[in-house]
């Protein structure tokens, strides 16, 4: 058993003529919390459905918890805990009935564990699911996803529609019951500030590809903003990692991926510049809609 929990190689998926995923590759080692970030509609849910074998792909190789979703989806679903954004729960069931219903599908289902989670999350047992609040529904989803002790948990924008208090609680639950237990977690989100605190690694999906991936701390260390005088911009060639360049009068505000190295190069050629930290939101924006073109015409 390798220590890679999830492996995606050259995944491609198109809906008719619309290519949603185009040559996507990444690996998630066992025990890592991996966050898939991207704007709404970019293909995060498509990616997750592909991982679970809910969607056939045009090409590429996938391995999730040792299974190929194309050939082995049943075994895969037994090993993976899944919490969907829009989980069509059986609204007319109670929590107790849902657990009883799900148990036969999972050889590793632990009803004592299910009970513990339901207690822990304070889910009323005898209330119909349609009567539960959104926050309670998410917790119930998490409880049943955890009750069969999965090695890997795949969560599709789990905090969507939750109020800030519930979101914080959800993050706590993720840290305590998934991360601290050494499980591998893949989750998609569009809320970067929430993701930063919890994820080990983030991957930005944009226009069908993973355009940037890495631990959040190194992302922050590498992608930084700096102000440069026009004279410097004019006589320096644009750095390879230039993400955004805007001119304001005699100065340029630029965002560079690989900022520390670029600053060293500038210093070596005689110009001392300073970079400032950016919020993860701004980093994301620069990666996805940054405009570096203006530098070339300086």
């Amino acid at each position: 058993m390798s220590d890679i929990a999830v492996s995606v190689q050259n995944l491609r998926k198109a809906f008719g003529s619309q290519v949603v995923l185009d040559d996507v590759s990444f690996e998630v080692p066992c025990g890592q919390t991996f966050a898939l970030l991207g704007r709404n509609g970019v293909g995060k849910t498509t990616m997750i459905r592909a991982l679970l074998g809910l969607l056939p792909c045009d090409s590429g190789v996938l391995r999730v918890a040792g299974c190929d979703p194309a050939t082995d989806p049943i075994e895969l679903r037994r090993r993976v805990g899944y919490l969907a954004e829009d989980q069509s729960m059986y609204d007319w069931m109670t929590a107790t009935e849902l657990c009883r219903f799900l148990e036969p599908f999972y050889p590793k289902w632990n009803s004592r564990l299910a009970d513990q989670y339901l207690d822990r999350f304070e889910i009323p047992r005898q209330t119909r699911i349609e009567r539960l609040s959104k926050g309670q529904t998410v917790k119930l989803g998490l409880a049943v996803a955890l009750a069969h002790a999965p090695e890997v948990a795949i969560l599709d924008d789990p905090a969507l529609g939750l109020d800030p208090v519930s979101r914080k609680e959800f993050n706590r639950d993720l840290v305590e019951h998934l991360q601290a237990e050494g499980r591998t977690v893949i989750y998609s989100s569009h809320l970067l500030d929430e993701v930063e605190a919890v994820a080990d690694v983030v991957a930005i999906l944009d226009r069908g590809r993973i355009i940037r991936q890495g631990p959040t701390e190194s992302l922050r260390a590498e992608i930084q903003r700096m102000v440069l005088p026009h004279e410097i911009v004019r006589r320096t060639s644009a750095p390879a990692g230039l993400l955004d360049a805007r001119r304001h009068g005699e100065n340029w505000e630029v965002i560079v991926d690989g900022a520390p190295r670029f600053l060293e190069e500038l210093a070596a050629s005689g110009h001392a510049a300073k970079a400032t930290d950016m919020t993860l939101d701004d980093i994301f924006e620069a990666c996805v809609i940054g405009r570096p073109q203006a530098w070339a015409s300086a």
Partner: protein
Amino acid sequence: MFVHIERGSSIPISRQIAEQLRSQCLSGTLVAGEKLPSVRELAQQLAVNVNTVFRIYERLAAEGLIELRHGDGTYVSPRRTESRSELSAQRDKFSLEFDALIQRGVMLGFTDAELRALLTSALATARKSQQ
């Protein structure tokens, strides 16, 4: 033990936590010999990645501020004579940051009265959350 995290800040979360713990150790707010939450407890409390908390504790231990006693827990180290000058260095750094912040406020057009009001309100909030 009180740690306040500002999400969506340009300061990375790990740095925020590390600086607060460091300041509290140096200033004596965290008393020598006091037991800190376990890595797991703190991660859960703050809703922060377990590895992040672990790395912070390791860093603070390397700085001599806390000790990780195997099988027992994490404790605040006894204050060393150097820690007074470290505290003073931290305070100097704070003053510089404060100056830079006020400069920015002035450039943004805040009046003196507005800046003072911001200070008063921030101070009130900080003292209140200390209790």
